[in-house]
């Protein structure tokens, strides 16, 4: 099945993250963290080999910690309104709260996390995509399943 290309996925993921950050006022400064792609097939998961996840992290800087809860709530309401499915909502946890959502249409997930020092980080990942968008010719071959 044809998918976004890896590069398209990088762009789309960035759009998801930017859309979230734009809800915040005053706007935090984004500091890039880990980014890259990773094979999303496992040799024994039975899926066709060769696809990748794209992932990106950004720290939200220049945000006073007292605003953290408000940011969690703002993004929760934004994501729900935009049709994201809530995967995990631990906003109420006193330490290391997090909120994870996934876009119902395109399968991208986005997370907001607070670490033990109360820094906020927004991150996301794409669903599995073929690097060039097109599966190789033999990708639909059925592989046995188990691990």
């Amino acid at each position: 099945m044809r998918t976004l290309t890896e590069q398209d996925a990088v762009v789309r993921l960035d759009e998801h993250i930017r859309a979230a950050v734009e809800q915040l006022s005053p706007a935090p400064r984004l500091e890039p963290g880990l980014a890259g792609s990773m094979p999303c097939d496992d040799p024994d998961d039975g899926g066709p080999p060769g696809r990748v996840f794209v992932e990106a992290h950004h720290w939200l800087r220049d945000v006073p910690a007292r605003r953290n809860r408000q940011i969690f709530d703002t993004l929760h309401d934004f994501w729900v309104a935009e049709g994201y499915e809530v995967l995990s909502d631990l906003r109420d946890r006193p330490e290391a709260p997090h909120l994870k959502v996934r876009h119902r249409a395109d399968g991208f997930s986005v997370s907001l996390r607070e670490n033990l020092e109360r820094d906020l980080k927004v991150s996301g990942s794409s669903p599995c995509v073929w690097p060039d968008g097109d599966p190789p010719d033999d990708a639909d071959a059925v592989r046995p399943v188990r691990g």
Partner: protein
Amino acid sequence: MAAVGDEVTYTEQGRTYRVRGLQAKGQSISGGSHELDGLITTRLTAAKTALEQWRGPHAGTFVEDVNSVLSKMASQKVALWRAGNIVSQFPDKPTGSWGSVRYQDEIYMSARVDLLLDPGVTSAVTSQLRAYVTTSSGQDERFSTLAGVVNLDGVTADVTYNRPLTATERQQALDAGEHPADLDVTMVPQTDTIDPGTLITLPTPNADVPALTEGSRILNEFTLAVAVAFETGDQGMLDRLAKDPDALRLRLDWVREDPRRWNQLSETERLFLIQVLPNEVGAMDGLPIVVRDQANRIVLQRSREALQSRADFLRTQDLRPRPTPMPHPGETAPLSPADELAQIEEKLRGIDALERRLAGVPGRPPAFLVGFSADGTGRAIVAVGNPDYADNVVTYVPGTGSRLGKINGDIERADRMVGDANALAPSSSTSVITWLGYDAPQSLGQATSGRYADGGAGLLRHFQDGLDISHIGGPATETVVGHSYGTTVIGHAARDGHLNADNLILVASPGVGVDNVSGLHMDASHVYATVAANDPIQYTPPFLLGTKPTNPGFGAQVFESAPGSPSVHAHSEYWDDGNVARDNMAAIITGRRDLVTEPRPHPTPGPAPTPPR
């Protein structure tokens, strides 16, 4: 002399030589031969000078052997120099004939010596010279397996000259009425084919060669050690080598008994051991990670060259698909050249990815090569961040299908685990080691057997013990994470001995070889397990590998993972950023078990999202 295209014709002493394909070959060798020449001269001088100082009790026969080989090598150097000269300058200056380079064995030896002496410096040379290890025939038995070969395939040559009549020809001419006096001066043209394949033999590629004999091994190491000792001016090492050619290996054996002794070695001794015995140093659990890293990078480089040579050779073979012959009982079927080439190419891609990560990636911690072998399906132990200095040390054991050619994905997981842990707890540091230090099953059929786990269990225990020895500062919090069959390896390691770890994390386990957590000899509250609701691994029958650690009766701490896609793909989604399993693993790794979340009921999995178009 005339050159037309890549065919060269020249006449010397009444003989006309016609050589094809040499220009191309000569050009590729020319750069290397001069560098090699200088290198060998230096090394030989060093070794010979050191030998003259040798006064120890073991000198005797061995010194004679070494002396004879060294003088042989000296003349071989000349032969190689001449060969290189002839080949590289052939189109312009035919200073010699092919006959003058018929020192096959000597050329082999020189190339081999080069390979042994300085693989780093001479990698370019060896790749040009195509030096292989091969068996040679009829040499001194002691060195019978010690030979490199300069591969001149692609070069063809013949020689035309006039010769007197043979007895038969003369008789035929007399019978035909020729005058005997005329026949005395009659010459007839003769053309002989010179096959560079016999002149400089096409190699038996090194993968097929049995291990070097003990004698040649000692000689190789000795020669190199002497050369290094001389160059670094280490008189102490020279004295020790003079007493016993195996001094270096004995020194390493002494370290092996207690790896902490590494720090008692002199700086030169450490350098020696890394340079001369990189395989042994690289594989020694308990040595400092940076030391193993240095040694294994040498091993990696050598392996890459050997694989590249083998691939080049295979590409000259018939690569058409052919039916696999039936193996003899008890043996595996030999690979076809095409299949072997595909495997090597995959390994080389894995090595490429590994080298890129080892070279450093902006924004990610440095990576260290803690173990490496290209044998079989390949092994690699790669640390993201230096575990010797980390507060939290994680060993990640990958599962079915893991091999050198696929190591990239596993290291990416390690990068994410490090990133997650350091993001959650910035005040502590975390290192994650991808431990592909065992032969993983490569098929689902193989993964139904506990044999591979048994093979890895002892190695994993030994590795974990080594981490404690080399760690600097107070003890680290050690976690061993397994995925899929990797959990089975961990289970067998803990079941059959003491696995040195504070926490176990068993992700998507098909079974860990015991039916209850008590069989793992660990504090049950520190044995964690998870499986996605949609992961088919949970349907593995328990009679194969034991009870799954996520079963309620097993007694492990089961933690939450996202349910995953309702497809087989859920088996590998644990390292997706959207998966809460990643947050839970980061909490365990950093010692914040209070933040670990328990599984939530997932009544019905939702529909899979439509892949984006």
